[in-house]
């Protein structure tokens, strides 16, 4: 499937979605669901305001810290459980069980521990992101073919060289997949935290707009977040595919 065809199809989908949006708008009325064009125009104005900048910064900072924690802790756990077979065997089902829990139910605990500030958001976001990063890193390490290690030894590589020159490139694609999914769920975690209990942030903006019946702001911010997430995901996915070819 050629690249131009893919782009054409993606554009076609966007057009269809916009048309659906327009259609729903006519069905439902503009207070609840404003039309696409006015919404996007509003969004264009909104992102230049100081109010937006403050809230976007709040989310961005929380997201960045949460992501750093999720990646750091997740990779560490993943490497340990991947390399240490017993820990992996014992821990994997626990991690999987935690992964499919609705972690939002643990949010009050986070709030009680960290309070209502940014640290609560960061902790909650990181809590979401740690699991897929750990699980996929663990899988990547486990799936290293023994023949790689044997080859490294037969070429008399040092342990450090083995890790850097052989094991890291071998596991990188799958680890990046974990980072990609981790990014998605960390963002969701931060947004959920903001939607429930925050005075700042893009999630807060959406809930606030809902209570003030400001449809354009509500949907505009949502669309912006969608675009950001889709782009970040596409970038990491491209990187993943690039790694697979090498």
């Amino acid at each position, binding site marked *: *499937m050629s690249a131009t*065809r*893919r782009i054409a*199809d*993606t554009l*076609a*989908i966007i057009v269809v979605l916009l048309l659906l949006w327009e259609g729903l708008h006519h069905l*439902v009325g503009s*207070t*609840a*669901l404003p039309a696409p064009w006015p919404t996007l125009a509003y969004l264009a104005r909104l992102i230049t305001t100081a109010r937006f900048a403050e809230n976007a910064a709040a989310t961005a900072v929380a997201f960045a810290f949460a992501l750093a924690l999720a990646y750091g802790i997740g990779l560490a756990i993943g490497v340990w459980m991947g390399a240490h077979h*017993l820990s992996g*065997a*014992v*821990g994997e*089902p*626990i991690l999987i*069980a935690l992964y*499919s*829990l*609705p*972690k*939002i*139910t*643990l*949010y*009050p*605990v986070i*709030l*009680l*521990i960290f309070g209502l500030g940014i640290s609560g958001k960061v902790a909650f976001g990181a809590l979401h992101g740690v699991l897929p990063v750990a699980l996929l890193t663990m899988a990547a390490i486990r799936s290293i073919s023994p023949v790689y290690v044997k080859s490294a030894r037969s070429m008399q590589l040092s342990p450090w060289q083995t890790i850097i020159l052989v094991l890291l490139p071998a596991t990188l694609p799958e680890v990046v997949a974990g980072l*990609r999914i981790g990014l*998605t769920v960390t*963002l*969701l975690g931060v*947004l*959920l935290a903001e*939607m*429930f209990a925050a005075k700042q942030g893009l*999630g807060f903006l*959406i*809930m606030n*707009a*809902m209570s003030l*019946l400001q*449809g354009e702001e*509500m*949907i505009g911010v*949502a669309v912006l*977040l*969608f675009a950001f*997430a*889709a782009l*970040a*995901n*596409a970038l990491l*996915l491209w990187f993943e595919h690039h790694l697979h070819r090498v």
Partner: protein
Amino acid sequence: MTRIGRIRLLVILTAVAALEIACRTDLIDRRVVIPPSEMATSLLRILASGAGNEDIVRTLGMIAAASAISVILGFALGLLIHALPRVRAALDPLFATYYAVPIFIFYPVLIAIFGLSLLPILLIAVATAIVAMIIATLNGLDRVPRVLSKVARVHHMGALATAVRLQLPAAAPYLFTGVKLAVSYGFIAVIASEFILAPAGLGRQIADAYADFDNRRMYALMLLILIIATVVNTVLHAFDLRWAERRGRKIS
């Protein structure tokens, strides 16, 4: 139980015991976390009094409804899309990105449109779960070995018989993965919706308990959700294992 299973159980029990001791010795402030034993007794009291029943039924009912709709509709859509390759190719980028974007932030929009009722929760839960089922259906249908359609012709099977007796069973393990995911996502979406904003339900009760500083009630209900989620996932996982057994352990 296997050795690893025993170690795992030991790890979990040790963690719970540590939490219990830490709470009782005030290493952890009771205003933050209460001892697990108190969580359990509080839960039993709530269940015994029947005070939570309405919310429990409502929440579980929503999850069941959302899962059922997602699975059935998702399967049907998957079948349809699989039969239309050009449509499928066009939808591919959408499926690839769907779970990369926080669909859930549309929940407030749905509330604005439909009001504070069951419908927004159902809609957001189905929206979250259905695509997993569609993708799993497409995946499963892809993996039906091509030789099976030749076998069908050798046995003079019509299109319907081929679909029901050969393609469906062949795709079944992958379809079941879709069911697992759909139930899991539906569960999470319903609870999250109730927690953020809903008229009733377990999630709402937890949020209320938090706002009222009623830790006993809050933790009891959190424990309940934890138990329900674990039971549901374990049952689904067990089924999955049963099928996996038929599909790989060699005896000859």
